[in-house]
């Protein structure tokens, strides 16, 4: 999506020397990164580390979607923001930090809430998408928009002391709807506002999301497609499990999809929950 460069310039050679030294990446891999575009949906706990490491790695165009503003309680984990930016748009704050590390990338911000009307037109402009959101409705929306636009989706999530990462819509792997055809009952969904989260857990999961996007963009290594990585911070244990393949009956990635890029559904209604971490406090929530 970003014009491929014929060669690296001297500044790029200096900046990325530690990448160029690696046989698995090298000049060709770095050129692929510079020609790639990644959209990060959510500039919160997951998006903080993901955006910084994607920018540092030289992803050519980085899109950041977030309609929220920086709050004091975010700073316990959202290290891309600062105290001086409380009240500022999270997308703009994230852009400022990523350009501080690498001003050579094209960083585009979307200070909007992604919805059925705008998701496809934004997502179709990028090669890879990171789901760094915090609620079920947006996760179905991002999935459906990515699948219908044929964009691999690197999905991360974190709560309390646990994290999960996988890749949807890539190769023979499943999509979010293949795994979860029905949304969980709204009363059973916990987000970080309700259940809390140890700040470094989304930081770590965001790093893994950035890593997987970098590997896909550079065509290096084996991806988490078809696998789910689980992390338990309490014991510091990682575990990778094997997921089902794509479901031919899936209503978005199957053979006769009923959800198409021109006909996304109403996700808030589908999930029976608001697409907003803060509107829907669940005092009893523990799951």
């Amino acid at each position, binding site marked *: 999506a970003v014009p491929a460069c014929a060669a690296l310039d001297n500044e790029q050679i200096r900046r990325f020397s530690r990448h160029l030294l690696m046989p698995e990446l090298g000049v060709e891999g770095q050129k692929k990164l510079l020609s790639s575009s990644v959209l990060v949906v*959510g500039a919160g706990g997951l998006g903080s580390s993901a955006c910084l490491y994607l920018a540092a790695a030289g992803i050519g165009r980085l899109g950041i979607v977030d309609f929220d503003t920086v709050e004091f309680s975010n700073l316990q984990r959202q290290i891309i923001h600062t105290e001086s930016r409380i009240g500022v748009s999270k997308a703009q704050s994230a852009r400022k930090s990523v350009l501080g590390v690498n001003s050579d990338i094209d960083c585009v911000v979307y200070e909007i809430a992604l919805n059925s009307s705008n998701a496809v037109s934004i997502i179709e402009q990028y090669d890879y998408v990171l789901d760094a959101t915090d609620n079920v409705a947006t996760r179905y929306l991002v999935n459906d928009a990515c699948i219908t636009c044929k964009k691999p989706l690197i999905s991360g999530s974190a709560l309390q002391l*646990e994290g999960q990462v996988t890749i949807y819509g890539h190769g023979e792997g499943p999509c979010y709807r293949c795994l979860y055809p029905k949304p969980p009952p709204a009363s*059973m*969904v*916990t987000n*970080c506002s309700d*259940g809390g989260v140890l700040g470094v857990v989304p930081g770590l999961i965001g790093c893994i999301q950035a890593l997987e996007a970098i590997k896909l963009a550079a065509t290096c290594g084996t991806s988490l497609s078809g696998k789910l990585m689980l992390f338990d911070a309490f014991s510091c244990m990682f575990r990778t*499990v094997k997921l089902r*393949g794509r479901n031919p009956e899936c209503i978005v990635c199957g053979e006769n999809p009923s959800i198409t890029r021109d006909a996304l559904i109403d996700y808030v209604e589908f999930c029976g929950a608001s697409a907003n971490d803060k509107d829907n406090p669940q005092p009893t929530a523990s799951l």
Partner: protein
Amino acid sequence: MVKLKIEFSGGLELLFDKKKEVAVDAPADVEDSKINMKTLIEWIKTNLLKERPELFVSGDSVRPGILVLVNDTDWELLDQLEYNCEDGDNVLFISTLHGG
């Protein structure tokens, strides 16, 4: 009896006395040495679940949003409710996380 390791993750452990891992002897209902997954879920509900069964089961399966892994493999690759667990199997129930 079938000797199984049952694990809960993603917050499900809160329904099971905060235990993330339980070693159990479940009653065999197939060939004296295996237990069908549908039976196992019912057995777990009766014998291990401490609270709010609607957060774990729905009909004769697990509720939407829970993944079931047998020996680290999605049960959809293994006959799902018709899979028969045997001695030494590891059954992991994961609630999907949505936070970020």
